[in-house]
């Protein structure tokens, strides 16, 4: 059997197995819903046995399919595929800018700067949207008047809070997804501009082995230009992260000290006992018994 045929068979088996697994999952869900809908105190040994024995055939077929596919893999092992780096415009750009620089004053340089400013703006707008989505539900969620004993124990508070936060989270995630698409297009465009500049001679190669000082100065100048393009609200957290990266030892010592102090305080104030007291009881709601 040729390798192509083997690969084709493996692919077909994989798709068939996927369908079987999804079907098995759907069967489990259907049986559980059926048992739950069958009346009060629906879950008994009899109802569960009856329900799951009705899908036993599907489950066994799925298990058999997995084992068969495994046996097929034993007879025709997977060949080692050469690892290739995924296409990543951001990484390609980084690599190009480390080796080349676009001449100032050219159309290409103007377009590159405009694209970078646009990306900075996209990041800023997305950050603002995420912050707004995080802050907007807070006054409602933190309004303690809503939290009466009856409301809390009746699940209404949970459902309302989750729906509200889910809505804002969906907006934030959607904004991030749109930003990812727009940033990707901007990087692709910048890559195309730089490649065109290279072809037309508007970009020159940096030679770090001959002129390391100039390369370092250029790199610093590019970084400064990029920093200016970044809004100050984005610069501050990056500065904190950079400081932490440079002073890892100090941060570690600080966190270690705080952790040990908290541990000791927690042991003294009875927190350890709280953990034990809860852990030795079956948390029925945690495991869904309710």
């Amino acid at each position: 059997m040729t390798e192509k045929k083997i690969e084709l068979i493996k692919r077909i088996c994989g798709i068939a197995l996927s369908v079987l697994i999804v079907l098995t999952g759907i069967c489990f869900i259907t049986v559980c819903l059926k048992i739950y809908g069958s009346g009060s105190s629906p879950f008994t040994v009899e109802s569960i046995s009856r329900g799951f024995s009705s899908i036993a055939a599907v489950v066994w077929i799925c298990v058999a399919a997995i084992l068969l596919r495994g046996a097929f893999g034993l007879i025709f092992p997977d060949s080692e595929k050469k690892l290739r780096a995924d296409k990543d415009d951001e990484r390609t750009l980084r690599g190009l800018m480390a080796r080349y620089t676009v001449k100032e004053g050219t159309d290409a340089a103007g377009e590159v700067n405009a694209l970078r400013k646009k990306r900075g703006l996209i990041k800023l707008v997305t950050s603002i949207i995420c912050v707004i989505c995080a802050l907007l539900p807070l006054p409602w969620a933190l309004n303690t008047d809503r939290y009466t004993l009856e409301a809390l124990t009746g699940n209404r508070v949970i459902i309302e809070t989750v729906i509200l936060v889910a809505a804002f989270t969906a907006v934030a995630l959607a904004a991030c997804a749109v930003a990812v698409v727009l940033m990707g297009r901007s990087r692709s465009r910048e890559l195309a501009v730089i490649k065109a500049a290279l072809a037309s001679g508007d970009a020159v190669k940096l030679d770090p082995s001959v002129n390391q000082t100039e390369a370092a100065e250029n790199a610093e100048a590019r970084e400064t230009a990029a920093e200016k393009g970044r809004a100050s609200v984005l610069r501050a957290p990056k500065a904190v992260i950079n400081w932490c990266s440079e002073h890892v030892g100090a941060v570690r010592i600080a966190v270690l000290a705080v952790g040990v102090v908290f541990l000791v305080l927690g042991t003294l104030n009875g927190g350890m006992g709280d953990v034990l007291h809860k852990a030795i009881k079956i948390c029925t709601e945690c495991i869904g018994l309710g």
Partner: protein
Amino acid sequence: MKIKQWWDNHKPSKRRLIQLYAALLFNANLKGFGNGRIYTGPLKNICTPGLNCYSCPGASGACPLGALQNALGASNTRAPYYVIGIIMLYGLLLGRWICGFLCPFGLIQELLHKIPTPKLKKNRFTRVFSWLKYVILVLFVVILPLMYALRKVPLPAFCKYICPAGTLEGAMGLLSNKLNEDMLGMLGPLFTWKFLLLVCFVVACVFIYRFFCRFFCPLGALYGLFNRICFFGIKLDKPRCTDCGLCVSKCKMDIRHVGDHECISCGECISVCPTKAISWKGSKIFLAPDELGGEIAVSGTDMTEKKELGSSAKHETASSEAIEKKYATRRLAVKATAIALSAVLLISALVYYNFIDKAPEAEQPDEPDIGVGEGDGGGGSEDSGQVREGYRVGTKMYSADIPLINGSGELGSIMNTAEHEGKILIVNFWGIWCTPCIQELPHFDRIASEYKDSVTVLAIHSDYTDKDIPYDWIAEYYPETDMNFGHDVGDSYYSKLGGRDSYPMTLIADENGIVILRETGSITYEELKAAVDSALAKSASGAEQ
């Protein structure tokens, strides 16, 4: 040859062996799977580093995420220093190496992913979606438990509504044991929701690598914050890095670069780096001279002294060989010590939990003979002499002296449960840390006020020590009630009445003290009313006769 090739491709790696070891160590209470009980000993105040539900019968320690939510839920009484301190220390020491090597649920996800189906690869959108776990961390682990804590109602929101580890390890582990059949009556809408969620996670894990880890796990989100500063894990040697991107391509997590907050330090990228820029933190003391490319680190306990290899002169070649041999011996010694210590730890844990530990399990009395009127609520007074004491339906309820808590939130008189014959007695075991218990207390309060003359309701709080008695809570929420509040230090009466670590539990005895209802789990107002009405009707018809 093919078998050898298959074995080479599929043999368990060191990481897999460590994962299996950790799963066994954190679930060392194997006898729990046999007797259907969870471990209740003192070692459960230690949190395991990974996601491992403490309601799993085998769990040997507490889950850090569950402990954090409960600690935040109790933050109105004391600050959650202990759990936060433990998580900080785990994060600082190991970071997300815990996810890659120690988390039992991570192991389960990886094993599911090995099923040979087409896989969904990571992309820009999965990276955006990976931020969802931070939203879940903030909302379900921090905000909701804290807001509920303001009203002194405990709510481990993530555990209750999302965590699949609890459903798989806890629920399936307990319910699969025949001895826990009575727990099936507690299953309802919550279990249905969690089971559906579990099935979705399991199916998704087959197609998407570590689906739960990447997008939903708040513990991974927490540990990821420590990845840059943790002592153990993956590091990148930036001067050597050529930004080829092979490490990012090899990695199945949503990393931007090696060692960021998404990196679980599995080490798969180390072998693909062409310039060997990726290594384990702290590995310099083990590296052979040639792997350092001209530099070696000597005697790496507190100080390192770098020596450069010189030219290929004979005496320098001889000394480098000697140094290489020394490092090989050191590596072997450290590995052997680590393996020996790990084996000793595991064997000790298994022996301790399964043979030595005499953790205070419920000292339940022997199953009593069922007396007259088995299952039908007891008979008349001439039968009561034949009825044995017990806790099952049809037996005469075991009696005890219960200290009461009065409406001002102080200790009051003692109530003996046998002294209320002539009235129907409802005994409910509850805990302030138990949300379903708090949810159903109003039903008992209502019954107590509606049937004041014919029913006595006794709500007994479970205390680990005297300091756990919820005086303030009772004074705030039930200052004027027809219910009696009592407390039971060490669960002695609870165990006597057949309690097996799960709350709430309700028993109802008729006027003769015969048990007519015993329910583990939540009970509705309608069920209570039906049982009381039935007992009253029988007693009325008995009186007429």
